[in-house]
């Protein structure tokens, strides 16, 4: 009897945990977290800034930040990134859907592993951007 109670409790807890989307980490070592306004200021101030949208392509097409290029985190490979950003000190800004999206943090982890040092993370992502009704580009 106790076994069954324990078994179903574990199953139930697992379902609950699986149903709850995890949050992105509050901070990442060697990465600067920026807000939407800071993103705008960075874009306007630094023409060299590379903005990478880590979301799916369908989401990107519906709307994205002006000047951002779409590279899904799972498709981010060293060769492509080296091709786009050969200088590993160039500022790189990543974003995805928001605080419950882990794609951009995954991309940043990869970039950091590959030696990119000037990393910025727009943790609020697309959710914060649209809530503030900032300009979006649709394809």
């Amino acid at each position: 009897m106790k076994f069954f109670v324990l078994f179903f409790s574990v199953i139930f807890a697992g379902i609950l945990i699986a149903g709850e989307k995890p949050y992105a980490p509050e901070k990442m070592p060697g990465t600067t977290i920026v807000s939407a306004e800071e993103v705008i200021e960075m874009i306007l101030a630094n023409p060299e800034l590379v903005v990478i949208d880590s979301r799916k392509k369908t989401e990107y097409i519906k709307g994205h930040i002006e000047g951002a290029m779409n590279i899904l985190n799972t498709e981010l490979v060293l060769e492509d990134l080296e091709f786009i950003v050969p200088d590993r000190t160039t500022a790189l800004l990543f974003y995805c859907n928001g605080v419950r999206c882990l794609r951009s943090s995954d991309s940043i982890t990869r970039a950091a592993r590959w030696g990119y040092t000037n990393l910025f993370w727009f943790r609020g992502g697309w959710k914060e951007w649209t809530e503030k009704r900032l300009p979006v580009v649709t394809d």
Partner: protein
Amino acid sequence: MRIDKLSIKTVTIAIFLMVGIVAIILSLFAGAYFRQAAMDAQVGSLSRVIEVASQEILRDVSKQTFDLGMKLGHNKQLIQTLQETDGEAAHERLTTLLDDPFINGFVGFAKINLVKLRVYSPDLALVAESSAGITGLENYLSEYLVARVTQRSKTERLQAIDALWLSAKGPMYSTLVPVGGLRAVGYLEVIVDPVFNLPDIGNITKTPISVFSMAGAHININEQVDTDSLLPVEFILLTFAGEPAFRIVGYEDVSRLSKTMEHTQMVTTGGFLLLTLITLLFALWLFSRFLFVPLGQMVEGMKQIAQGKLNLTVNKKGLHEFSTLAKSFESMANQVKIRTNDLERLLDLDNSAILCFGHDGEAVYFNKGATALFGYQDDEISDLDLGDLFSEDIVQLMKDAVRLNAAVQGNALHIQLGCIRKDGHAFQSDAVINPLDVMGGFGYTIVLNPVSDETDDGLTNYLVNSIEQNEQRMHAVEQSLNSILEIAKNNPGMISGVGDLERPALPGLKTDDDKRLLREQVVQVMQSALACWEHDLNKTKLDLAEESKIWPVYIDKSTPTTRTLDKYLHTDSCPKNPRNQRVIDTAEFVLRQMNRRTTLGRRQLQQALDDFRGLISGLKTAKK
């Protein structure tokens, strides 16, 4: 109207009726208020629903205008033309570009009613507007939007702003977006007519909706609503600046709510009234059981005792206070009875014949001298009247005496009367006739001393002296009786004897003869009571002890005995200071159990009890 007398029953029923009427009125009022409160709550709730629905509709409009604005705001031609400075040509190109959505459509064209597109310079000056759409709008950005934009920092100005505002053509909904994206070169205003979308509120609230302008014009005239059986709920939609823009009326079908409320009201009111009625009836039953009935019986008993039936007992059931009152009254009546017995015994000691008559001339009392003189038995006295005993008309004699004011000393009339014995023998007797209050009425007391045929002076003097002595005795007896009655009437608690009766023994017994006499009388009463109990009620001595709960029952070797009671049945074993109240209580208990059955045993017991009371009273008097 002045009310002098009301019975407790009348007052109680009147109070209960008032409570009942108040309960009915209150329940009706409460029901009406409940209904109104439910309606108000329903109106408030629906008004809030309309408000939320209207906000939702405006949010949808905003999304559409934002998408259109972003699409146009990133139009390279528009950005480039807006940056050009060649005046008229650029203006025409801008107008053409702004007219394009009206001509070629756009995504979401069917969802909003686009009425105007305008572009502004970064400092919010109107640069150009579409030639399509409505005309007559002011040629500047609304004050609300200007204020909002100018309050913002440079980065914040890139955020799109919405506003519902009042134009010359009525309320309009605008969305202001930057042209050129993050590197804004100006602003684009997308203006739509919200009237196109507001009727969709009804799709959210699931109720018919009418939209009125603040001037009262019915805007969505195409939707005809039969409002006869519907509850109109109004909501005023304000502009972003806080000015009234539209009056939106939703029509709620409250027939079901009314039906439910009627049912609820009926059930709650009916339940409340039923509970009130049951409570009142229960209270009335309690009053009747413990107040009205016992009080009525008590009053009836008191009336009968007041009429002279001193042997009766007053009902003591019911409320504790009434029981106490009844006990006090009964104690008072017992005192009166004892005093009366004292007086009767005193009168019996007199050699004169003393007779008492009521206001109709009926015989009320004869002392032993009188019964001996006239030859009647005690039980025959109540059938006699003045005419049976005297040859003269006493009533007329008294009236004449009073009228003439002669031969009257004080109130008494001295006269010689012709008397008639039971056997018909007539004789003359000196008499003193005294008017008297008898049981609240007018009567006479007559003291007789027969006149001897012998005529010597010694006898005459003796008779004269005897008459004077009788008169003095009569006055003494009257004064005593009046004082006792006065005390009994005004101050029952002050009458001595009740407390004395409850004492374990009479402290006034000083001589051995007194104590022996008392013990004999105690034994006499107890034996009479036991005889009555055993013979007339066919019960045992043990039953008497158990049922009366006056005497303890002991268990000796598994056999119940009544040792204490047994002591009171023999003079030798009777305690020197017997418990008189126990003896009286036992006798009264047996008499009550007899339940008005008249037997020889009962009469003997009653006589023994009266004698015992008289003895106690006499002893106490002697003590005093």
